[in-house]
């Protein structure tokens, strides 16, 4: 799906991305983490073709982004910006979702059914003005306006920034559903390690324009030195499990940790009963 081969990107001799290589398969959900200025957004823009690598190559579904226009890439790749207001302009949500489908050559009836289907899971009044919605709702409308184009890859640039807990969960559950049910590949920038742990099985970490770690989110959460290097702190559950001396993956979420605590307490009580 996405293949980066030794990709570098520089502006005026300053290298923002250095020798990045990675492969993300169809249907994967990966988080991209790192400190501010590490090059996360630049990497996403490179994948979207908004900027072209100075060295190396990026292949999306086997085709290089160098030779393709962004508008052509947008047929298969959806890019959600951190600020939804840069993408929204329609007078109504329905108009927002319908925009550009004719550019893609989608027939009128197909366009209508796609819009209706998307409105179905968006659960917002289609006649409302997008700019009158809350930040979280605007973010979801922006996501819906991408999804209506049926992309096979979603690039999300900090989609939960500025959202409250409820909006954040609504947003992430929508993304997770698209990934799970429609097989959409997701690459998401986040600073929130709780979200990375809950939703992304794979995590990539960037520091100084280099990919310094790529692997299972649960395992990387335990790599204290790497997290420190990327100015990240582990998810609370992982930190607690580590403090309790548990092995990686043994109890990294609330349910399994609660089970472990309950069994430990029960075991302790039984031992106390024997003595």
């Amino acid at each position, binding site marked *: 799906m996405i293949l980066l081969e030794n990709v570098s990107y520089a502006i*005026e001799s300053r290298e923002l991305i250095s020798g990045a290589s990675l492969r993300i398969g169809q249907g994967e959900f990966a988080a991209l983490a790192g400190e501010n200025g590490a090059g996360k957004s630049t990497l996403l*823009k490179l994948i*979207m073709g*908004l900027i072209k690598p100075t060295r190396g190559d990026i292949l999306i579904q086997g085709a290089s982004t160098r030779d393709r*226009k*962004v*508008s052509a890439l*947008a*047929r298969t*790749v*959806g*890019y959600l*910006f951190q*600020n939804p*207001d*840069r*993408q*929204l*302009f*329609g007078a109504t949500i329905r108009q927002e979702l319908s*925009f*550009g489908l004719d*550019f*893609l050559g989608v027939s009128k009836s197909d366009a209508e059914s796609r819009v209706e289907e998307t409105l179905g899971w968006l659960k917002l009044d289609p006649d409302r003005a997008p*700019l009158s919605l809350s930040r979280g709702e605007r973010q979801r409308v922006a996501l819906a*306006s*991408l999804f209506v*184009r049926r992309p096979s890859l979603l690039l999300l640039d900090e989609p939960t920034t500025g959202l409250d807990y409820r909006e954040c969960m609504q947003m992430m559950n929508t993304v997770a559903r698209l990934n799970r049910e429609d097989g959409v590949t997701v690459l998401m920038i986040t600073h929130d390690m709780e979200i990375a742990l809950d939703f992304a099985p794979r995590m990539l970490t960037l520091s100084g324009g280099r990919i310094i770690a790529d692997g299972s989110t649960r395992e990387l959460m335990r790599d204290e030195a790497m997290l420190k290097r990327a100015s990240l702190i582990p998810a609370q559950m992982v930190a607690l499990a580590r403090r309790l001396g548990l092995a990686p993956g043994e109890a990294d979420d609330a349910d399994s940790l609660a089970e472990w605590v309950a069994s430990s307490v029960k075991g302790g009580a039984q031992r106390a009963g024997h003595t």
Partner: protein
Amino acid sequence: MPGILEYQSGDTFLHRAHPLVKLLLAAVICVGGFLTQSLWVNLALLALSIVGGFALGMGRKVKASLKGAGSLCLFLFVVQLPFVRMGRTLLPLPFGLRITDLGLRYCAQLGMRLLGATLPLVLMLGVTRLSDLTNTLVAQLGIPYRYAFVITTAIRFIPVLFVEMRDVIEAQTARGVELDGSFKQKIRLIPPLCVPLLVSCVQRMENNALAAELRGFYLRKRGSGYRRYPLSAADAPALAACALILIIAIIT
């Protein structure tokens, strides 16, 4: 690298000059270009700005201004040229249009006046901090702070809006919008590009106005501000240059 309308640090005599003297010099070059009837004086003023810009280490700004304003001047030259009917006809054109010697002269002078008015302002902003300009406008010219603030904020916002526009274009391109489509498609692009930019500008203005008000914007008086800007002997050559340019422009 500072943008075309941003301050560029340096230690030239113009960087050290009094902000009002720099503003006066830029204004005199602009006005002089419109006062003179001589094409040669226009050319000389333009050359002065170009050479001065390079001497100040602002060659990049000069080139960018010449490229931007130059294309507008060229467009105006081409559009106006066939419609000037005065003078000797050099080349007759269809539909009763013609190119005349006076037409060439007027259109060339118009272009040079526009370029000559753009470059000094760009260079003045390159050697003057906007805060210094605001302070002197308020303290020494007595312009109410709110007006001085509006002028300098408008200038400061131009590069910000360019960045915002670039981001909006990126966002819409990522949605599959083609910027190089047919004329009809370009017309359809106006809402996707203009609405987000307008929304962002209004939001930014509202936030800035609120923030400024909360920080005592309306309490500022003419005597407020810690910095003082006294005229010095080093400003004399620039003032003399202003007088000279004005005299030459009036008598030619």
